[in-house]
Every structure is written in C-alpha cells, then in structure tokens.
C-alpha cells in the first residue's frame, strides 16, 4: 500500500490569502487515520491557522516522532519539508534543525505516548532549551497504533475498551510544562476548532517553546463509556478559561477595540493575544496562578482548556546561545574557516 495523494482540485470560489494561496495549498496527503479521529480535526485547524497567518508553506518545517499523531504531519502542507523521526525523539531533531536554521517556522506534532512515555525526557529538555517551535501534543490517553494500551496520560479509573480501569496516576502535560518553566502553555480540544485556531496562531507566533495539549479522542480505542478522553466526556467536562483572539501585528489597528476584552498580551513580533471575558481572578502571565487554577479545576473533575500561561519575555534557545541573527546554514564558508595563517600561528602554541 502506498500513500494517497489528494487530487489538486481547486474550487473557483475558494478564497486566497495575500500570498495567493488557498486553504487547499495548505493541505497534505489524504489522511489514513480512522474516520472520526480527533487528529484529523486538529490537522484541519492547523491548515486554517497557517493559511490565515499567511505563512509560505516552504518556510515551515513539520517535525514528528512515531504514532498516530506523528503521522499527521503528512496530512497538511505538502509544500513543507517534513521529518517523521524516531519514537519520542522529535524534540531533539527539531532543536538541531532550529539551531541550524532559525528562520523556519517549526511545528512539532506528537502524542501522549510519544511525549509522555518514551519521549518524556526529550520534551522536558526542549522546554528547558526553550526551542522556538509550536509543539502540539495530540492527547487521547491511549496507544492507537498498537491497539488500545493505556498511555501515561490516562486518568486513574478511566476504562479501556475491554473494561479494565487504569490505576497509575497520569502525567498532565500542562502541569508538567508549567512546572518546567515553559513559556507558552495551552490546552485545546479537537472538537472545538473555533477556539483551537487562534490558539495555534498564537503558538506559532510565540517566540520560544509553545506547548498545546489537545484532547483528541481516539474513536477506535478510547471513545467508549467510562473513558475520560472520549468525545462525550470531554464535551461534558471541558471549561474554556477564556476564548482568545489572535491579532497579527499588521491588523492591530482594525481590531483594537474588541468588546469585553479584559487581558491582552503583546507578543514578541508585536502581535497581540487577547483574552476575552477572562475573570479578574485569572492572570495568564502568572505561572503559579495558572498551575493552581488547573489543579483546582482538575480536583473538581473539570478539564480546563484555553491559553493558560504566556511569557513573552524569556530568551529562546538562540538568544541564550547568543547565535547570530542570520541562520547558520546561510553563513558563507569563508566566514567560518580561520584560514592557513591562523592555523600556523596557533601551532606555535603547541610546543
């Protein structure tokens, strides 16, 4: 069986962005995931976000590990380079690629197995390095490709398809990221594209490591009664902290007086993230408060979604390393080699 390419059909009524590209130009190969998979909805939201941000597809790089979620990098932006690496190790590959070419926009797609079990160390250290990338964790609490084993994000008491209950405590990527000092932490739901798209856009524009944990139900192995990662359970128990609007830099003036906006955060490139109707008791720039809020809601059995924490002031990997602004891959060899005279002089020090 080979991969399935989508026919390049373009409907005449399709709108184009300022690059002259339609949403179709941001799509990829046909998804081979199960019908109804949450991941396909996330893919659609990614297409929407890149289209609206007007990012030239070839200036983006799609990074992934292994698993159902990691396969999805093939299903959007066929004109972008993609890198489907080894299980749990995408963060290091993305770190290396970013070290070499800081000008590309990196989007990493991972899952709960890839990120929270085999790749937990790599995720933690990518957060510590604050690699400039959007890291999407498509979270379904289950190993899909190997047919239904619990993952490390499965809640205690959540039941498998065969009826057995999970007993080990889950690792919550949001709490993990907050405690590790992540500079952008959000949770979304694949069934709520309207709220997911602005979150993705803000994450893509964030300078540093942006983690979005997306509850993305597995229709084949974890969408039954008794599962806490099913569509039904998630729909019934998720609470959006506050819808966010992402206002790109160039559009700021036209959207500056949105009614009801209570908190705005200016991003590194001048874009603005605006939290609508956020309660006065919540400050998305207060890490400890964000942590406490998520924990308190969890105790009540609620899943808090939304952009939970944002810090636009921290240094990313390159700022910490004091790397030149120009991508290292673009530096001419002449500027990298000290030459024969320097070597000759240096040799005098080894005698």
């Amino acid at each position, binding site marked *: 069986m080979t991969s399935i390419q989508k026919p390049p059909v373009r409907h005449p009524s399709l709108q184009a962005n300022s690059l002259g590209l339609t949403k179709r130009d941001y799509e990829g190969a046909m998804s081979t995931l199960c019908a109804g998979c949450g991941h396909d909805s996330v893919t659609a939201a990614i297409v929407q976000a890149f289209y609206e941000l007007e990012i030239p597809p070839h200036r983006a790089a799609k990074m992934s590990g292994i698993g159902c979620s990691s396969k999805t990098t093939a299903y959007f932006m066929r004109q972008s380079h993609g890198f489907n*690496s080894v299980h749990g190790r995408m963060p*290091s590959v993305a770190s290396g690629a970013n070290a070499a070419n800081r000008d590309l926009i990196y989007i990493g797609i991972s899952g709960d197995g890839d990120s929270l079990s085999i790749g937990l160390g790599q995720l933690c250290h990518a957060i510590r390095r604050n690699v400039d990338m959007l890291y999407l964790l498509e979270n379904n609490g289950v190993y899909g490709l190997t047919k239904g084993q619990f993952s490390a994000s499965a809640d205690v008491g959540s039941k498998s398809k065969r009826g057995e209950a999970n007993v080990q405590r889950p690792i919550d990527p949001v709490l993990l990221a907050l405690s590790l000092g992540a500079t952008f932490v959000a949770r979304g739901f694949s069934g709520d594209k309207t709220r997911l798209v602005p979150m993705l856009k803000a994450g893509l524009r964030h300078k540093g490591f942006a983690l979005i944990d997306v509850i993305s139900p597995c229709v084949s192995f974890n969408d039954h009664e008794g599962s806490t990662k099913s569509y039904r359970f998630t729909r019934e128990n998720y609470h959006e902290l506050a819808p966010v609007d992402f206002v790109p830099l160039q559009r700021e003036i036209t959207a500056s007086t949105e009614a009801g906006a209570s908190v705005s955060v200016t991003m590194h490139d001048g874009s603005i993230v605006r939290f609508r109707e956020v309660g006065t008791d919540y400050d998305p720039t207060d890490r400890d408060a964000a942590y406490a809020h998520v924990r308190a809601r969890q105790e009540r059995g609620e899943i808090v979604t939304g952009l939970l924490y944002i810090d636009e002031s921290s240094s990313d990997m390159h700022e910490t390393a004091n790397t030149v602004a120009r991508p290292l891959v673009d530096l001419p060899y002449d500027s990298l080699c000290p030459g024969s005279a320097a070597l000759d002089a240096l040799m005098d020090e080894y005698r």
Partner: protein
Amino acid sequence: MVNDFAFKIATVNGTGSASANGLLMQAIYRMGIPVSGKNVFPSNIQGLPTWYEIRVSKDGYTARPANVDLIVALNPATYAKDVAAVRRGGWLLYDSSWPLDRALRRDDITILGVPFGNMCVEAFAGDRERTLMRNIAYTGALVALLDIDMDVVSEIIREQFTKKRALLDSNFRALHLGYDYAKKNFSCPLPIRLERMNATRDQVLLDGNTAAALGCLYAGATVGAWYPITPATSLMEAFTGFCKRYRVDPQTKRNNYCILQAEDELSAAGITIGAAWAGARAFTSTAGPGISLMSEFIGLAYYTEIPGVFFDIQRTGPSTGMPTRTQQADLLSIAYLSHGDTKHIALFPSNPAECFYMSVTAFDLTERFQTPVFVVSDLDIGMNDWMVPRLTWEDSYRPDRGKVLDAAQLEKVQRFSRYLDVDGDGIAARTLPGVSPKGAYFVRGSGHDKHAAYTEDSAEYREVVDRLARKLKTAEEAVPAPEIRRRNGGSSVGVVALGGTHAAMLEACDRLAAEGIEVDYMRIRSFPFGTAVREFLDAHETLFVVEQNRDAQLRSLLAIETGIARDRMIPVLDYGGLPLTADFVTSQVARELEAHV
C-alpha cells in the same frame, strides 16, 4: 642510553602532578628530542593511583614502552607494582622523608632517595601548596638526574605563571629544592640522559581531541551537540574554545555557531541529524556507551540519508567498562550500527594530526554520501599529547556539500524525487528545508519509495535499500585508502592494523626486520574496505591482524567484507586497556611464525 629511555611517575590523582609531568615532557620536546607521554589515569577526581609514562626516543618511536628505566614512586599504594616495572639495572627515585618501604626494595636497581615531603613542609605553608610543590620538586630532581635543560624548564614555568607572581616564585623555589639536592647527593646526570637534538622543529605536541575539534572548525561545522563522557568530552570543549576564539562575529559579537549540551546521547544524535538535515555541518562526540544509545538515530539517518559526523573516542568496554583506559572494541558495532540492514562509513585516524585531516574528510564524505560518518579514535589518541607534524591548511579548500539542489536547479526539474538515482552512483540529490516549495519532501524512517512516499510494497522498498547498498559500494573507493608499507621486494607475511596502534606497529616492523623477520604492513584507514585492502590480504600467505579488543573484531570485519577466510588471519590481541607496545607485537608475531614453520 642518551636520548633513548623511558621513565614513569607514579602519583595519586588530584595532587597536581599532571602539570609537572606535562612540564617535563614539554621541556624534552623543546630540547629538540622526540618524546611521547601516556597519561594512565583513574576514573576518579581525587585519591586513586595515576601514572605518567614518558618515552624519549632519538629514533622517533612514540609507542608506549614495555618497561621503564626509571620510576618515580610517590604513591605508597602502588609501590610494589611500580618498582617491578623498572628494568634490571634501572633506577628508583622515591621520597626519603619516610624510611624506604619494604615494597620498594630491589637489589638489581639503584635506589635514589630525596626527602621531597620534608623539603616542601619546610619551604612552604599550607597543605595545598606543599602538595603541589612536591611535584615541582621531583621535577627539579629529574632535571638534574636526566640533564634536562634548566633554561628550557625555567622558560616554560615563566610562560605558565607570568600572571601569577606568587606561584612563579614558589615554582622556582621548589624546582631548585629538588635540583640542588640531586646535584649535591647523586652523581648527575645518570647514564640515561638527554642531549639537545634538532628533531622536533616542525612538530607540535597535540592531543587528538583538540586536533579533531580544529578539524571541525576548519571544515565549517556550525552545530555541535554532545553529552559529557570520558574520553570524548575534551573534543567538544576544545571546539567550544576554538569557536569562542575564531567564530564570534567581530561586528555583532554574536556566535557563528551553536553548541548544545544535550540531555543524553540520544538527543545529541537527534540534534546532529536535525541540524544536518536543515543544511548545517553538524557533529557530536561520544564514546562507546553513547554510540550504543545513538544506535536508533544512526539507523534513521542511514535509511533517510541524512549526513552527520559522529566521533567515537573509544574506551574500554563493554558497558561502562574502564572509562579511562583505551581500546579498539567498537569496530563491529559501528560498522553495522542499528537494527535492520545497515553499513556505515568509518575513518580510523592513527594520531592527532590525522584526527585533524580526517575530521575534514568526514564532513566531505558525510555530505557527499548523505549518510552518517564515524571518526573512530580512541582514548590514547584523543587525550594524550602526541608529537606530530605541524598541522597545515590549504586555503583553496571548499566543502564538498554533495548533491544539494538549490531553488534555481529545482525550477528546472519536472518533479523532484528525493530518492531517485539519476547518476547511477547510488547517490540521489537532496534539498534543504526552506529553499523552495518544489523541493519539499517527507523524511520518514518508515518504508518509503524513491519519491519518499510511504510504501509497504516489496519492490518499491527493495529499490531503495538496494540503492543504499550501491551507494555504500561507491563509497569504498572514495574513502581514505590504506597505508601500505612493503619491505624490499615484498614479504609473504602481512600484518594488518588500524588506528592508534600505528606507532607501535611501525616500531614492531623495524624490530622484526632487525631480527630477520621481514613483514609487509597495511594500516587500514577506513571502512567500508576498498579493493586495496582485499588485494593486500590476497597477496600475503601469512596474515596477522593486530588489534585492541578481545574478539578480533577487525579480523571478523575483514572476513565478512572481503570473503577471506577468518582462519587465514592470525589474531594478535591486546585488550587490557593500555596503549599497545611494540614488544607485544614483536613477540607475538615471532612466536606465531616460529610455531608455523
């Protein structure tokens, strides 16, 4: 005995003896006399035995000596073993602040006592300074005993301590304490002594890790990823030092490089591969345990055809093994590292100079063949100072980036297919991310066809892996050829070795010849083996394969790859963790030949 002897200094690590020992070696080198030093140190920070072996050889032999003429025994814990290493008629220098230990007594050597401890207690204040200066005091005694040029020693001390006035004075005082005592109480110099020569003028004293780091600098590497591990740590530390010196943009004061200390070797491998995929020259340095961890990523890079240079500074395995001892025991695992059918290009430098040149070659080969390349060094080459010819550089050098299509070239092709063999050499053109939408493709470690699309089709799968085999076949003749030294007219006996044993091998060949045993010698410089390797094996009736591992790994590799019967190659194996001696090779080969006649 003039300019032809060896001596060993036995101390406790963490007491500062390393700098005194380095000073001795450097002084001899500056007297123009060929010299080599082997630091035999523990995997420990303070309190365990450590030795420094210095060999002086007017003929330029730099291999580790089998025994020594003089021992400086300053570690009571190893007295018995140390004094046993001295040849009959040799000398023992010990600290006579205490009565001569029973373990140090031998009737067939000359015993010289200097009260180093007492001298330093009287002359210096504080435990630390007394301990440190004891090392300089024994250096002073050796200066007198071996006739080391005092002016040269003084010059080096002045260079080291110009900015630390107090230390400079202490060092000179300690030096003269030892020197004066020896002059007054012994008949100096001893029969083993030094005389100025002019044999080191175009040479430098350099360790392999520093040289390899310089190679990476000159090759234009911009991304280095690593996880600290002995004996590879000093490679990336040296690279960092050179980058701070030569790679900071003069205008912006920002770095033309990015070095990432990763959380483990898996990540270091991933960073290297990610950076190389994006178009940088990237590398990592590690040792055996790191190689094991990198295995999965190496398979990915092989199958998806991504470059990357991997330095393996071999140490004694298996497992943690002896981290501060040397070995050549990663050969088989590197040749076919990772699951599935794989084969990798590996280069085997024999000394620090070759570490420099082969690092550059490694970057060219990895980009040309779009596959990981290993530079397989070892602890002895990597961490010891070797006397090698001054490194030189051709300014006309330009990196071989291999087949990389730019935006303009992509415009001309109908459809870009990442794994399509257009030229018949097994090497397909690659593209870099960010360059052109037409060059986009999907890297996947899963089954893929020549267009980089997912496949589970047997024929499509085989088409790709068969081409990979063809690519590695092409590499056989592109990698560095073996160095072959034939005796006049050629011998029926061939000796094969690789890597850092070269120094001992050259000496062994000469010594065998002196005993009337003429052997031809081949030093393998790379893997996969080319035709020259096979021809050498074919052309010799009796073959010896000398290597530093228990299981004759090189012999196995030669048998697998060339089809030459394993039993036709006699293994000569030294795997105790110390650098090879010519004695060992000479005696093993001579014995085997005698048995075969």
